[in-house]
């Protein structure tokens, strides 16, 4: 990929002045700085969160993330619910991609209690997870462009996503909250004709990818706005715990599906895309390649999925499912990166402690605050979306 070297750099000699530690000296009363609150009620913010930006001209000198607008106290609520009751609760932790929540909870519970999941259920789980990834990417890949007012791709993506949601409705009975993966297995077989309809949809999405390649990725405006903007330095990856597409865009080939294969991912042929340029455009490309890969994975899953009757392991009565003492950390790869759940059990039917490790938690707070410094105000939203921040998952 050709790298655009002509990036406009502001004249740094005057403002802001820096102290000896290199920190900008911000004196709001000097009237040389503006404090701008972006969000929570702001169309340019993903979800319901806010950014407290200190601007010098149109350049950000200091950024603070404010979250908590969607805090429901899941980790507390789940301590009051039995393991089976936790599962409809847990999926609300991330609205955009609820299936990862279901999966990590189930995987953690199964690992602690030693439940073996039937083979068909594992494939169906994988199908649900990949479909969830697909519907998120269909929203996000063109979504990065729509933050720069290139809204058409987003409208197309939204329409493609509708088809996947329809397939979800057939398979799981739910449109947004699927509540499909539950401890022990899954809740339904593949419906009749599902494969055929899904393959048709995938063909449509193939066409869609071609179209957005033309519309967005070859678009000169998009390139101008994103190449070289929002650089994530490679040394930040470990420093800030960056995972998923942002890490892959920075030259770190990290993918839980490859590194710690769960379900049946070791029977699937795929190779996560990696790039090194680490700007918004690269992250968009990584996501687009993820999209292509996901379509391919779903085709492979549909090809290999066995047709057994057994879709849920025999568990003790779920009304009083007790889990042996212990602690476990289960992880999966969501569309945003490593998504894990840490569960501590004290041997009763309620979890002692549940903690969700979401990628946005670090991406949207510490990393975003770092990345926004020196960014142009008009790029703030694009940087946010390229990190795919998900506020409900940060504050849970």
């Amino acid at each position, binding site marked *: 990929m050709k790298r655009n070297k002509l990036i406009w750099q502001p004249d740094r000699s005057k403002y802001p002045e820096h102290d000896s530690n290199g920190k900008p000296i911000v004196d709001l009363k000097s009237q040389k700085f503006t404090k701008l609150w972006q969000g929570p009620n702001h169309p340019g913010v993903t979800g319901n969160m806010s950014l407290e930006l200190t601007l010098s001209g149109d350049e950000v000198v200091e950024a603070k993330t404010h*979250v*908590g607008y969607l*805090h429901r*106290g899941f*980790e*507390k*609520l789940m*301590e*009051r619910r039995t393991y089976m009751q936790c599962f409809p609760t847990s999926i609300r932790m991330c609205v955009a991609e609820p299936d990862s929540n279901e999966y990590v909870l189930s995987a953690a519970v199964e*690992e602690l209690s030693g439940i073996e999941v039937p083979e068909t259920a594992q494939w169906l789980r994988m199908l649900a997870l990949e479909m969830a990834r697909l519907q998120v990417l269909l929203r996000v890949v063109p979504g990065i462009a729509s933050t720069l007012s290139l809204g058409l791709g987003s409208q197309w993506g939204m329409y493609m996503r509708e088809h996947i949601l329809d397939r979800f409705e057939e398979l799981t009975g739910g449109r947004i909250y699927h509540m499909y993966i539950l401890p022990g297995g899954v809740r339904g077989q593949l419906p009749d004709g599902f494969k055929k309809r899904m393959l048709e949809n995938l063909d449509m999405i193939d066409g869609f990818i071609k179209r957005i390649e033309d519309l967005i990725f070859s678009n000169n405006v998009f390139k101008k706005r994103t190449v070289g903007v929002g650089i994530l330095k490679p040394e930040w990856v*470990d*420093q*800030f*715990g960056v995972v998923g597409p942002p890490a892959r865009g920075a030259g*770190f080939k*990290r993918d839980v599906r490859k*590194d*710690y294969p769960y379900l049946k991912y070791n029977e699937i042929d795929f190779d996560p895309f990696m790039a090194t340029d680490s700007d918004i455009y690269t992250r968009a490309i990584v996501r687009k390649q993820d999209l292509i890969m996901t379509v391919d994975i779903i085709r492979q899953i549909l090809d290999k999925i066995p047709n057994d009757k057994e879709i849920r392991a025999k568990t003790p009565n779920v009304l009083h499912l007790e889990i042996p003492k*212990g*602690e*476990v*950390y289960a992880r999966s790869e969501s569309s945003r990166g*490593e998504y*894990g759940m*840490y569960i*501590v059990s004290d041997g009763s039917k309620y979890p*002692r*402690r549940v*903690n969700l*490790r979401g990628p946005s*938690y*670090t991406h949207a*707070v*510490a*990393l975003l605050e*770092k990345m926004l410094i020196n960014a142009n105000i008009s790029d703030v939203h694009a940087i946010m979306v390229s990190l795919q921040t998900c506020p409900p998952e940060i*504050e849970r």
Partner: protein
Amino acid sequence: MDKIIKDLTSRFKVTDYIQQRPNMAYVTVQKELAISLITHMRDIEGFTHFVLLTAVDWIEDNLFQLTYILNSPDKKVDLGIRVMIDRENPTMDSAHHLWQQVATYQRELKEMFGIDFPGSPRVDESFILEGWDDIPPYRRDFDTLKYAEETYFPRDGRGSNDPAEYMKKKLYPDEEK
């Protein structure tokens, strides 16, 4: 993994070693040695990816358990480090100088559990809650249902019957135990 643990046992006196699965283990370490252990893991053993930091409230034992989960992207192994700290006066050394993101976790723990991490940036600023004046909500002794019912006007007109009790009332009301 076993080699690492053996090394840690002699150097940092780690205890309660549990091999959760082939590539994941948990150990407990004393509060004083925790940060040096974590530094050792990061710099020498290659556990460069910080996964999470969270706390568990063992109110029966009057302890907070802090769990640091570290991950080695090269060896593809995880290590959970448990640190038990006193529940009455919970403070812990900050680890934000090792990973900048840890400051966020520590801010949340300060707010949700009341565990202090002196020196951590912005640790006293409110993170999620706004104007909270009760005990930190993630502590076990905070009853969220009671709080919600007292504060948020649940709708009237609800009320349920226990089948066994109801049948007793209907079919054999006079019989006492």
